[in-house]
């Protein structure tokens, strides 16, 4: 009888527990990585509406961490004291849409928040985030133009039929719009979800803080979880101005958009999944001074952490510190199919990145 009860209890638990499936191959560290990342992935936060993500980050931080939220919405965690001040920054926001207007028929016109292929949202389920609740709907398919890859501007239908009925659901211009998402384990160590960019960066900072040996810190380290990166590095710019020239070095922790894909040109950005974190030495916003890349490689080697070095496209939050004379030593992990619902990571790379952040904080 007890056995039956235990089995029923297990069944009930499985039916209500968060959907973060585990792999039989997971180590304890990898399990923690998947758990933290899964929680962040299944939280929504289009640029400008990052509150749910900020709340999730706070809950995932170690209990000793004291947080501050600045006027822009960035979340700060300061550890240790003294110069030189080293800053890590990972962004909390994700790409998506904001409601531009409500039409007479109750459908919503949209404006982009960040850069992506709109075809990825066409004819998909939609969630309108009002701040108070999520309203379900659909991204309407085009009714013409089938000969083109990308659709005309998208609209969302929440099934009301009138502007007044849509407004009655609490939807107003400025509400953000995404599609439902889920953290799903693929084969072995890989996982799929939308908005790994940059929830992996957030997870790496959280994991580094959880395992940080604060007794080893020789100077102050500031961890910033920034807002509105996808629409122009806006949150990080506020943090950079706040700190001015007091920062000795900044590490943007953000996606290394990888060409490890059958669809990409192999000319650059070929950082392999499963081969570790990546020094994002050159991108469209900054160039890491070569001596710093070398130092980073030495830190990684000293801890036996896998590190790749490469160049990719995109901008990073650390570049907003550069005008203050701060070297930007950007780091990331290889991501396939960036800014799409198909994003794929290798959890070993995420673990590698978290270990590297911890090592830098403790030793560099």
């Amino acid at each position, binding site marked *: 009888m007890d056995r*039956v009860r235990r*089995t*029923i209890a297990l*069944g*009930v638990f*499985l*039916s209500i527990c968060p*959907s973060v499936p585990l792999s039989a191959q997971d180590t304890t560290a990898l399990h923690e990585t998947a758990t933290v990342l899964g929680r962040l992935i299944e939280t929504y936060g289009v640029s400008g509406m990052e509150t749910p993500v900020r709340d999730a980050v706070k809950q995932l931080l170690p209990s000793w961490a004291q947080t501050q939220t600045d006027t822009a919405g960035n979340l700060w965690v300061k550890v240790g004291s003294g110069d030189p001040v080293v800053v890590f920054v990972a962004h909390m926001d994700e790409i998506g849409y904001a409601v531009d207007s409500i039409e007479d028929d109750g459908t919503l016109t949209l404006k982009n928040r960040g*850069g*992506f*292929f709109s*075809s*990825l949202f066409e*004819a*998909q*389920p939609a969630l309108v985030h009002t701040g108070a609740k999520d309203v*379900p*709907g*659909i991204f*309407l*398919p*085009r009714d013409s133009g*089938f*000969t*083109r*890859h*990308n659709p005309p501007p998208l609209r969302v*239908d*929440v*099934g*009301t*039929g009138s502007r007044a009925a849509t407004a009655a659901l609490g939807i107003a211009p400025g509400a953000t719009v995404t599609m*439902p998402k889920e953290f*799903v*384990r*693929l*084969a*072995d160590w*890989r*996982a*799929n979800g939308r908005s790994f960019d940059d929830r992996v960066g957030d997870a790496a900072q959280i994991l580094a803080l959880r395992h940080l040996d604060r007794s080893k810190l020789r100077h102050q380290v500031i961890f910033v979880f920034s807002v509105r990166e996808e629409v122009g590095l806006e949150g990080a710019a506020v943090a950079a101005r706040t700190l001015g020239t007091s920062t000795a070095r900044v590490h943007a922790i953000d996606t290394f*958009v*990888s*060409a490890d*894909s*059958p*669809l*990409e*040109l192999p000319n650059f950005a070929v950082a392999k999944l499963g081969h570790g974190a990546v020094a994002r030495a050159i991108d*469209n916003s900054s160039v890491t001074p070569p001596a710093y890349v070398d130092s980073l490689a030495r830190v990684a080697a000293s801890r036996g952490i896998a590190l790749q070095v490469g160049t*990719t*496209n*995109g901008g990073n939050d650390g570049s907003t510190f550069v005008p203050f004379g701060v070297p930007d030593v950007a780091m990331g992990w290889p991501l396939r*199919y*960036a800014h*799409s*619902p*198909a*994003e*794929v990571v290798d959890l070993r790379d995420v673990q590698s990145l978290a270990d590297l952040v911890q090592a830098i904080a403790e030793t560099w």
Partner: protein
Amino acid sequence: MVRALLLLSVLPALRLSAQDPLTRLAPRLAAMTAVSGLEQAMTDTLLTLVPASTRDRAGNVIAVLGKGSPRRLLSCPVDEPGFVVGNVTDDGYLLLRRVGRVQNFLFDQSLEGHRVTLFGARGPVPGVVAVRSTHLTRGRPNPDQPPFTVDNAFVDVGASSAAEVQALGLAVLTPVALWKDPMLYGGSLLAAPDAGRRTACAALVAAATSRSKPKGTVVIAFTVEGLEGGNPGLAAAKALHGPFDDTREVTLPARFANTPVETVNLDDARALEKQLEEWIGGGK
């Protein structure tokens, strides 16, 4: 009880509140996959839902209500357009072949950059269809691309070699479909791939299991391979279980057909269920 709880733990999380049998059944069937010619999981489910039903040698699920004449056929196609694995590359990607007739460019394009489920020999396996990263198109010529087709689809299941793919139970002919999570919106609207066909079949299940007294004999047929040329499942149902004095194929109007958000109104489905109950009882 235990089995039911465990089943609940692995079923896709539906956002629907249980209000009536059809409201529960339509999204349940819409969450399932039945690629044309490979409908076994769906027909297994229908066998459990419809009392005294059997599978005929064509693969159709058949239930016979009443007896005597007239002898009438009420059928619903259970299949859907989808894909099977056509090839596996040395570096662990799977290529696809379309199965079942479909006329909508968005059907193929809906694959690009989205999650799929592969129904392998060892159970369902999640994967994604590769898409270019928008970042890596910057600074490069980007002419307006032709529509994405299934021939552009590389399925990534997290494997790095053909051997790893095989170890997952995946091989040529494995059925593949978009990952499904039916969405209820606007109060009574249901959006899901093939929502029209699935909701029509749900209405037929509801009508067939109602207590309506049939006039004469009514053969209920959930037919397979409806999207193959000549509709062989329905033809076989007529050949194996006829002749019939009257036949009706159950359909339900849907918006945005053959897209991931094919939408039906559950109020229409409830009305259809009533019509079917009346038809079973001899009404027009």
